[in-house]
């Protein structure tokens, strides 16, 4: 019955690059068509319109840290399934799918490096991994990054991109808000600077903890930033939302964030701030 013999395929796992299919991408703002390679080289900022696409965590590290200075920490941390969460898809399968898709272990990359020669502890969230949601791994890695900074007299920078807490880890996700914020209290008490960088989007449990606690809070242009999702607010209040509600520009006007800084100017701006804050420390 050779006709029914199983085919002798070998499976090869290919890491899919997280680039939109095709060679071109349309800017959602100006409708201009950009060559993907050009977009990548310009750190996912559309050259003419200045529209900021989301940037992968590792590319962000390259953007902000001095060449070759990044030393990753805690890269082996990965999610377990503490609730044995019953969903349409098992939690561990979701995590594996996200790992395959992104090549990351979880939604945050962290470590130390130098920024314009200054040592910094840097943690960067990756929205492409399950919407940057914060579970135990993200919370633990941020907390360690902060504690590392406190122990070595370094500033901390956290680049946020997250929809909020990770539902599948339930109450443990919520507790990461307390864990990270407590670590920031100790870092602050040591007189060290913390800069929070908000990118599109930064919402809910992340916004209601470390994202809002920077000595300086910087946002990229036109990022969605807030606590409750716009749809929920609309449904609850039955009111139309004001124009530009929950954007970086809205929050600058409303006094929450210190500056709006385009991605390509971010490193220089962070360097200047840290120089001002760390002068007396050296």
């Amino acid at each position, binding site marked *: 019955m050779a006709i029914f013999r199983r085919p002798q395929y070998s499976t090869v796992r290919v890491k899919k690059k997280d680039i939109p299919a095709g060679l071109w991408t349309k800017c959602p703002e100006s409708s201009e068509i950009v060559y993907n390679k050009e977009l990548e080289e310009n750190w996912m900022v559309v050259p003419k319109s200045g529209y900021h696409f989301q940037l992968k965590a590792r590319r962000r590290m390259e953007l902000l840290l001095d060449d070759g200075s990044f030393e990753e920490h805690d890269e*082996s*941390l*990965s*999610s*377990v399934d*503490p*609730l044995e*969460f*019953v*969903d349409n898809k098992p939690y561990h399968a*979701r995590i594996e799918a996200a790992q395959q898709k992104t090549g990351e272990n979880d939604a945050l990359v962290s470590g130390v490096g130098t920024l314009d020669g200054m040592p910094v502890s840097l943690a960067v969230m990756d929205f492409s991994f*399950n919407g940057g*949601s914060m579970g*135990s*791994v993200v919370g*633990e890695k941020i907390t360690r990054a902060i504690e590392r900074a406190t122990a070595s007299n370094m500033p901390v920078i956290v680049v946020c991109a*997250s*929809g*909020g*807490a*990770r*539902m*599948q*880890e*339930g*109450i*443990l*996700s*919520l*507790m*990461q*808000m*307390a*864990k990270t*914020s*407590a*670590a*920031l*209290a100790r870092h602050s008490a040591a007189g060290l600077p913390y800069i929070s960088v908000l990118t599109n*989007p930064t*919402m*809910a449990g992340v916004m*209601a903890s470390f*994202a*809002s*606690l920077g000595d300086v809070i910087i946002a990229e242009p036109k990022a969605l930033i*807030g*606590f*409750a*999702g716009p*749809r*929920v*607010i609309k449904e609850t*209040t039955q*009111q139309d939302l*004001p124009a530009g*509600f929950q954007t970086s520009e809205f*929050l600058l006007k*409303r006094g*929450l964030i210190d500056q709006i800084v385009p991605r390509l100017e971010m490193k220089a701006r962070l360097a200047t701030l840290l120089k001002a804050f760390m002068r007396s420390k050296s």
Partner: protein
Amino acid sequence: MDGSLSSKSLIPFILLPNPLFKNDASFGFDAPPSSTDSDRFNAMEKPKYSLDFEKPIHELQAQLANLQRMSEESDLDVTDEVKAIKVKIEETRKRIHAGLTPWQKIQLARHPQRPYSLDYIDAIFEDFQELHGDRRYMDDQAIIGGPAFLNGDPVMIVAQQKGRSTKENLARNFGCPNPEGYRKALRLMEMAQKFGMPIICLIDTPGAYPGIGAEERHVAEAIAVNIREMSALTVPIIATIIGEGGSGGALGIAVADRILILDNAYYSVISPEGCAAILWKDRVHAPRAADALKITSDKLVELGVVDEIVPEPLGGAHIDAALAAENLKTALEVNLAALKKKSTKALLDGRYAKFRAMGQFAEA
């Protein structure tokens, strides 16, 4: 932008307010039949607020009322029958409440007759002085607070408060705080630190209010600052979840040395309705979400998030509010006595270590 976000199924964006209670205060299905109220003589009368799973109890209660009415009208001696039904009611209640599902427990946590913070404050503490306002914008009545005495010793109370009537609920925003509630809470907690008073937090909120004004005045920042500051306050803090522990809105006054929870209360990262809407695209799956999220008191202890369960009277705290308050008072006394023995350093190190240990992950 909204569309692209809503497709991410792992994210609870929101801290949905639960179905808001619009009923008025006069439920009283456990009230004794009153001879002046002719409605009560209808044996088929349904209680104005009832839980599906308690239906067998309500049927027995109706039978009992009927029997008592008959005896009054016809001078029959039904003492034995009354006794038998009363025993049966207790047995039925025991049987039903021994095997409650998470969703059923949530119904109890949201029961409109459940004791609220002010009920406990009245029963447990002496001379509560409510202090109002955040000194910046307004007085948020969804969070109340002020000094009081516990067995003669001063404490600072910070508590979320729901309304009992429609009018009160509008004033208290159904227990959903705005940023000013959290800022008032911090003002009072810093006052407690200044005067060396332990802090008692009572948590009972569906969640922080998802409103336009709340966003404009930065409710996320208000919660974040509270969480950070509470981690370093130099006085003992005990937080008790007495009803609903709705996500960040609850955590904003719940960073503490000891975290207690009433047996039927819940504490969750997202409301079961919100979770169901995201995962299963429909709020009717809330019972399934309530199960999956592990938000009941026993699960929270297993996960290491809650230290101690405060027992409730059989059938829920609303069946016997005085007993529920007595249980809570005992738990507060015991825990406060233990915390008062600790040095400030031990207290702060312990609090840091407590939250530092929360979470589960693998590390190669």
